[in-house]
């Protein structure tokens, strides 16, 4: 499954690459292609409220004498009638610039900044092309010290959730083997994606996102936007509104909304939450620990009543799988317990020690997870890698000749908890496949290359802190 997914991603990336190359390598520079029929936009129609058409003095014999400039989504922009546009967070358009170039006489446009390109597919989806990215690389949206991992499918046409996530700002980081290979600012992503859609829609405002400051809609829904301090000033000021904020603001700005629209927005929000949760679980690593999926009745956040059917179905599937898993655990436990008991029978001289070690290991495991914030797999790996002297209390130290065996016993006891049977592993694999999580590399080298570090896990996002930590604490408490 993982291999096929990667092969698919690779093929997709290649196809996307060739498509984008074809899109941006057109010869717009040959000025014979510069003519009035290349005008695809009317710069008199404002892209957003506050935008204005302006004239420019040309020295040469050709060029667009008029253009449009404005400010939206926290970025300044200027665009020409042929669609050539620049978006940047500063009015000089000098840093962190998104540049949009359109194929002459067509509405086919591509936006790019260093190491990053985006365009609209035929189905109207945003598609990204990241330079120097290969299959197996991981992607993270980073904002300050917070970061979340995003699925590899961002190199495929983006769905609404991913587009809104990327449009929320921050930076997109691509990593290979834990090393960052590229980092691109996402400032202007939302505005540029809207601009691309606006071009394709022949400057139709209906394709712009909800809450977009559409001009000439100066009714009760938009007047509040113009009354903000920034817009009241002589010079327009950036309005850095994340899409989620915009969607919330839109409900405030536009109180007269249909019920369907409301439910759609809430459904989208629920899907985003679910997406975040799935990414959080993916962030927790390829840990097949069943306890990382809390029971539906206890830990799983209850789905909203108006959650879309697809998400609800997915959650139900997960809950059913988890219930089956719990049943299997209960069936397997006596067998494993008898197995574990059989170990002391083989080691009569130290029959009490494994239980004590097991308790000590559980205590250390709990410490590593609660105090240090490690996930289960990492905590176990730390216990395994640590010297025996460090993980055992002096009073229960076995004889040196017995250490190796007892370590194996302790690990076996731990594994009894983590990996009880092959059936469990199989179910876990199916569960992961069902929720379409990107798989971590299974080869030893790949696993070593992407093995998380303690520092990575100390950089918890607010999503991780709010959702995963309570689950882990509960699990640790149960132990």
């Amino acid at each position: 499954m993982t291999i096929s997914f990667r092969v698919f991603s690779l093929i997709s990336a290649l196809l996307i690459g060739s498509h984008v190359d074809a899109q941006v390598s057109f010869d717009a520079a040959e000025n014979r292609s510069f003519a009035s029929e290349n005008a695809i936009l009317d710069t008199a129609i404002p892209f957003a409220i506050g935008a204005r058409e302006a004239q420019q003095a040309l020295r040469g014999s050709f060029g667009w004498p008029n253009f449009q400039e404005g400010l939206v989504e926290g970025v300044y922009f200027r665009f020409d009638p042929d669609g050539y546009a620049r978006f940047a967070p500063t009015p000089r358009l000098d840093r962190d610039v998104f540049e949009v170039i359109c194929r002459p006489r067509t509405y086919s446009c591509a936006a790019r900044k260093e190491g990053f390109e985006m365009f609209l597919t035929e189905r109207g989806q945003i598609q990204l092309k990241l330079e120097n990215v290969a299959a197996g690389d991981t992607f993270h949206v980073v904002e300050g010290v917070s970061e979340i991992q995003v699925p590899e499918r961002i190199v495929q046409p983006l769905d609404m959730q991913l587009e809104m996530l990327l449009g929320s700002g921050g930076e997109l980081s691509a990593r290979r083997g834990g090393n960052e290979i590229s980092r691109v600012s996402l400032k202007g992503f939302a505005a540029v994606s809207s601009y691309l859609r606006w071009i394709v829609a022949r400057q139709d405002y209906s394709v712009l996102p909800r809450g977009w400051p559409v001009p000439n809609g100066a009714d009760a829904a938009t007047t509040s936007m113009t009354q903000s301090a920034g817009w009241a000033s002589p010079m327009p000021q950036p309005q850095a509104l994340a899409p989620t904020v915009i969607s919330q603001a839109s409900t405030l700005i536009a109180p007269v909304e249909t019920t369907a629209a409301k439910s759609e927005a809430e459904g989208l929000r629920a899907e985003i939450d679910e997406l975040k949760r799935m990414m959080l679980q993916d962030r927790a690593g390829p840990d097949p620990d069943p306890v990382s999926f809390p029971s539906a009745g206890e830990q799983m956040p209850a789905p909203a009543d108006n959650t879309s059917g697809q998400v609800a179905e997915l959650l139900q599937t997960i809950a059913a799988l988890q219930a089956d898993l719990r049943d299997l655990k209960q069936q397997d436990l006596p067998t494993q317990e008898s197995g574990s008991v059989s170990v002391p029978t083989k080691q009569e001289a130290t029959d009490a020690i494994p239980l004590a070690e097991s308790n000590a290991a559980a205590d250390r495991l709990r410490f590593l997870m609660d105090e240090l914030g490690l996930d289960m797999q990492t905590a176990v790996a730390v216990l395994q890698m640590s010297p025996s002297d460090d993980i055992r209390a002096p009073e229960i130290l076995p004889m040196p000749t017995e250490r190796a065996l007892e370590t194996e016993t302790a690990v076996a006891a731990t594994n009894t908890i983590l990996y009880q049977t092959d059936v469990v592993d199989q179910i876990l694999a199916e569960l992961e496949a069902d929720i379409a999580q990107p798989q971590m590399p299974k080869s030893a080298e790949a696993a070593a290359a992407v093995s998380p570090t303690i520092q990575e896990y100390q950089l918890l996002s607010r999503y991780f802190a709010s959702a995963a930590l309570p689950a882990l604490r509960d699990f640790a408490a149960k132990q």
Partner: protein
Amino acid sequence: MLHLFGSCRRSPVAGICLFFLAVSVLGGATYTVGVTARQVFLAQEEEVIPIIAGSDLDDIPALMRGNLPSVTTSLVKGEPRREKPPRLCEMPEDYFATKNTMPTRPAGYDRHNGYVRKYRTRRGFLNERELRAAKVAWHYFETFTQETTGLANSVGNYPSTTLWDTASYMAGLVAAYELCLIEKPEFDRRITLLLTTIKSLELFRKEMPNKVYHTKTGAKVDYTNKPGEIGFSALDIGRFLVWMRIYKNRYPYLANTIDSVLLKWDFRNVIDDEGLMFGAYVDKETGETVYAQEGRLGYEEYAAKGFALWGFRPRLAHRAEPFLTASIFGVQVPYDGRDPRVFHSQNYVVTESYLQDGLELGFDLPHDDSSPEWLHSDGWRAEFADRIYQVQENRWRQTGFLTARSEHNVKGPPYFTYDTIFSDGYPWNTVTPRGDYVPDHSAVAAKAALGLWALWDTEYTDVLYEAIIELYDPENGMYEGLYERGQGRVSIFTANNNGIILTSLLHKVQGPILTPYTGDTEVWFTAYRDQDTRVVRKYPDPPQEEDWLPALRHSVQEKADF
């Protein structure tokens, strides 16, 4: 007395007298008012006095005023006029050995505000590489000149042009002829066709040439090359006037044709009584013509001298003020002091306008036809040009960036950039006409590099020369430049670039391109003397000494300013 008065008042005779007296007074008053009113309201008719040559009312008859000679320094000072140099192929081998171009005065201003530069220009024959560059640059015009109109495309095969770029074509044509790349029949064929076409161009609202014309049809077009009109540019016209004067002075047999071209134009709005230049554009809302002051420090003075060469008096446009300086790498770089936020016009500092002044006019005033080549009568222009050069060399020495900045076209959007030394408050600012900062388009402009090489004989310009001299495509001409950030060549070919490169190479052979006028009277000054056309269109009279542009000076930077 009282008795007499009292008796008269009461008598019938007195009443009759009083009646007649009142009638007389009223009649007199009425007559006086009528006469006065007649004098006031019909004064114009009565004061129409025909101009009679030699009468007291006309010291210099208007009909004869055009016959006055244009007063130049050679006429006033009795100095010999400069001579037109021979063509390259007609120069004796020892031409430069016998020609002394070394200054006999120390560098700096003289008491007449002339200026002697501390740098020397390059003079001599063209070597093989330079001659090849000249041939390739001329090949641009061979390739992209339209046979139907004789106009050359501004950019590659895109069929449009401006007067600025047409002047560049004229520059290339003169250079090609003087460097013996073409012979006189070809030269005459091209220039005659071109001038005939320019004379037949439809003007912008019957005033001045439109900003842009279609090179295949000669129709006035808008910026998208569709039939329409934009307005006119005083800067473009100024540069075109420089080259019309160069042609007229160098080739007197073309003088009538050249004059007839200009005598179709109406100069009433392009330059005002104070000597400011105005461009025109069409108001988008009302469709009316709007005239707006045009030109900033650098370009404005160069274009002003173009007008002055034809007798106009652009006094204010020729002045440097208001200007400010920005200290960059120890050099106080002058820039226009008019605030872009108020005047909505950027103050770009680029090399090009100073180069053109130096190459074409020798940093001399329009009336100067006798000063030695090393003495620049328009002193402050030469001194400012030295600063423009020095700051670019300093940047190279202190940062390693090879620098020769100018405006230039680029391949693809945004099509055109001002690659400036200073603009909008920033040094080394590369911006588009609409104001975007596009540092990726910063480049070593080929025309600027070769121009600097021609006017400043230094180690730095040797490096520029090596960077540019082989930057050509044999099929299309010299490339526009070399990207500063390592993206390679600016893969576009323009008339302006190739024209200025040819001018630079010609300057090495012949020195300043403008040569003195050798004729006496000019049709330009004598035509329409029997009509009011000259008054209406503001055609000037031959410039006299009091009409000369003043020679000015500004403070000189004596030490580096960091």
